[in-house]
């Protein structure tokens, strides 16, 4: 049972949040100019690392704000919180 620090509401139980997957995947500015492979890379390919992982969470049952956390996918420990953008 994770304990997650919402940058706005503070530390809450995991059950208040929804997971948003790998962070920092910027949507291409001009998708039309991308090759199918480049588009597929944006769309599907993930780091899925065993270890530190920057990921998105949203405080779904709280303030509904999205934010980014860094978590170790083995120990499940969080290391950093910051706002989106």
């Amino acid at each position, binding site marked *: 049972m994770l304990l997650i620090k919402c940058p*706005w*509401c*503070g530390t*809450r*139980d995991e*059950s*208040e949040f929804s997971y948003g997957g790998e962070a920092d995947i910027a949507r291409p500015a001009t998708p039309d100019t991308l090759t199918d492979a480049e588009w597929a890379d944006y769309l599907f390919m993930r780091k899925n690392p065993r270890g530190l992982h920057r990921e998105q969470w949203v405080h779904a*049952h*709280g*303030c*509904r*704000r999205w934010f980014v956390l860094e978590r170790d996918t083995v120990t499940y420990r969080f290391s950093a919180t910051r706002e989106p953008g």
Partner: protein
Amino acid sequence: MSEVSQKRHALASFPGWQGAGAQAAPGVQLEISPYLGYLNLRGDPGDERFLQTIHAALGQPLPLVANTFTKALIPQEIAQGHLSIFWLGPDEWLLVAEPGIEKALAGRLRENLAGQCHSLTDLTGAQVLLRLSGDHARDALAEGCTLDLHPKVFKTGQCAQTTLAKASILIALTDDLPVFDVIVRRSFAGYAALWLQHSGADL
């Protein structure tokens, strides 16, 4: 006013609802509050002009501290009654007032905020307020709410959006007695009330 006669409360057919309220157990009182007016306000707390406009319009400032709410009298010229403002997020607040008043408030806010970036949405009828009090109120809530409601941690004047079992709620401690106000979305109100009735039953 036609409303009063025309309105039907979301929990009108809730088992154990006696208009005024329903009792869960001696240690826990569950009250279903009658109609209230709700407004959802969004805006940039970094914008001084926005904050001042609101303050001027409502006669009380927006709570900027996370997980808190304010309650004060509404300026005479708008209406008689109290207004509670709950912090919902960094740029979102919930205004709760006696029924009918919300329209006057909304009107005033729209006037004063004209031209400023904000959003004001009337949510009257979208939500229901359940009031839980009594010695065992904390225990009853603790059966389905993961927040730490210990008096030293969750104090009067604080509020939080969280979950009660499988419903999202806004919970606020309005009195040390304690008295908890639980605001829940209309279609979840029956579930939440029933749930509290059950959780209170063991205490």
